């Protein structure tokens, strides 16, 4: 059975993917989202005294479309990254998939269940970690929270022990187990949060900003752990993050969301191709140069002393480079892809400049919204 052609071949789990009570054939996506929408009614209030008084008598409401007809599918054991600025709709989408929110339109099926029905059998198989919030009891040692979690999820004693031992070893939690959660550092606490969310061996894991606020070393360790866990147990993971490093390290496939719409759904490498087909040329000059019109060659990103950075369309990168090499005394020259943050940042800028655009069509292939990017 071959996966659909448009999907990149990602490492299959070494152990067979978890199969629930509903034996799902491998060809059916584990998560299927179709035209999912969520709008909120938000009370509007201007600042100031008179508007405050007025609002006591008459409330003005505004409809906010947090998620706008979003569609995508996810195969078992995939790690998908959700990228987007604050308020893009990432967390709202995740909340709908974990059953916390009811959508205002569209459908979604995860593991064969409709999430917002909140069936116990469904909740037993998923897990959600919210980096900004803690689910551990503050005044108790982490161990107690684990124990309670095991009881709530009805984890048999033997399985609990083996899972706990494995997670404690992988996450290096031994020294912090008996300490009150309140006294732990953020990194230690985050590791405990990760541990508790995996105790019941969920098939699907929703990670909402799992490394937020954590120091660089710990971020790397957490990323490595997630990667290892996905390899070992084949859990499907949807991850949102502000840190590009999280996404580039873990996700082959990313979905870019802004203003509730999908701008891009596909492989990370293709993202820069589609959204910003540019290259950055960095020149290190061996002598001072004046009167050279860099702007004619390309967009000047920076020019300090003898170092200049130019942004040029991919197609003309070679030609421009040749020109620069012949015109100038070059000590060193590199041609790079623009940093991924840049790519995405510009995508959002262009999106808002280009006005509204139709959402990505529901398919598994790499897609790009018509309005994004602007240039092809």
């Amino acid at each position, binding site marked *: 059975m071959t996966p659909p052609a448009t999907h990149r071949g990602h490492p299959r789990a070494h152990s067979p993917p978890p199969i629930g009570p509903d034996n799902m054939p491998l060809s059916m996506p584990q998560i299927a989202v179709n035209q999912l929408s*969520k709008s*909120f009614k938000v009370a509007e209030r201007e600042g100031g005294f008179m508007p405050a008084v007025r609002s006591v008598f008459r409330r003005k409401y505004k409809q906010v479309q947090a998620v706008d007809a979003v569609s995508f599918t996810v195969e078992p054991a995939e790690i998908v990254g959700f990228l987007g600025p604050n308020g893009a709709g990432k967390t709202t989408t995740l*909340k709908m998939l*974990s*059953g*916390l*929110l*009811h959508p*205002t339109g569209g459908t979604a099926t995860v593991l064969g269940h409709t999430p*917002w029905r*909140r069936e*116990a*059998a*469904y*909740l*037993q198989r*998923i*897990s*959600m970690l*919210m980096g900004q*919030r*803690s*689910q551990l009891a503050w*005044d*108790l040692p982490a161990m*107690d929270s684990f*124990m*309670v979690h095991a*009881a*709530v*999820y*009805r984890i048999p004693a033997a399985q609990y022990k083996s899972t706990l031992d494995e997670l404690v070893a992988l996450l290096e939690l031994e020294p912090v187990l008996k300490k*009150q959660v309140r006294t732990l550092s953020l990194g230690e606490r985050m590791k405990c949060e990760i541990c508790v969310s995996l105790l019941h061996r969920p098939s699907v894991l929703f990670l909402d900003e799992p490394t937020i606020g954590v120091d660089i070393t710990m971020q790397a360790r957490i990323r490595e752990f997630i990667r290892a866990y996905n390899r070992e147990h084949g859990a499907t993971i949807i991850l949102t993050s502000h840190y590009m490093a999280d996404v580039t390290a873990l996700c082959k496939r990313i979905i870019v969301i802004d203003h509730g719409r999908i701008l891009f759904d596909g492989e990370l490498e293709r993202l820069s191709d589609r959204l910003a087909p540019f290259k950055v040329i960095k020149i290190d000059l061996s002598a001072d140069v004046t009167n050279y019109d860099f702007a004619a060659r390309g967009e000047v990103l920076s020019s300090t002393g003898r170092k200049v950075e130019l942004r040029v369309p991919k197609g003309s990168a070679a030609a421009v480079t040749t020109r620069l090499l012949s015109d100038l005394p070059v000590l060193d020259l590199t041609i790079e892809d623009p940093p991924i943050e840049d790519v995405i940042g510009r995508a959002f800028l262009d999106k808002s400049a280009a006005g509204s655009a139709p959402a990505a069509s529901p398919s598994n292939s790499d897609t790009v919204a018509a309005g994004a990017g602007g240039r092809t």
Partner: protein
Amino acid sequence: MIRALRLLSLYIRVSVQNLAAYRFDLIIRTIMSFVHISAELVGIWTIFHNTTNIRGWTAWHFLVLAGVYRMVAGGIRMFIVPNVRKLMEDIRNGTLDFVLLKPVNAQFLVSIREFVVWRITDVVLGLAVSLFGCWKLTNTIPLQATASFFVLMLAACVILYSLWLSLGVLCFWFVRIDNIEMVFWNVFEAGRYPIVIYPPWVRNMLTYVIPLAFITTIPAGALIGDDQSLILGRTAPLIAIGVAAVSFAAATWFFNFGIRRYSGASA
């Protein structure tokens, strides 16, 4: 059902285990328990320095009520108030989501998570004082009265749970008012003394509109057992069960309504 009990006992066990970390607190609070009950006794002493009985209720009657009042106050603070406060905190911080993610009934989970063990002193002291008052009155503790008392206290627990849960649910709409519980304590204050001290219109309000009487005077009257203390007569336990059932149903409906609204389900 067994699983529910197992979960509940786990939460209690965890709470007891962690008492050791707060030994100083424990000592102080136990002392304060004694101080509170002593204050009630001083109050009764003062009252009956000036009279021998108020509308049929003597010092010993008052003692029984004071004991019941303390038992109820302690009981509420042992397992109802902490859970409702946590619910309100969760609503405000957004951590209620974690409750909703669990494969357990949300209302159940929210009602058993917190447990303040040391409040048991209030319950024990209150019971001791009540029984002492009873003994002084009748020299025996008649069985029927005890059974009736037990049923009424159980009903009182359910009524109180329903009341408090509803207060907590209000937090979905009035997010900031977390001292909404003051509404309860203010009304509860009126139950400190037998409702016979109030004019009839207040008495009726406290029985039928706000079931305060069912939480304080009626159970006390049942324990005493003599005819004039029995408010609503011998059918009180049945009426109390009825009131308890209705309030529980109402509170459960209200909680689920709040959750549905919170998760944006169309009503």
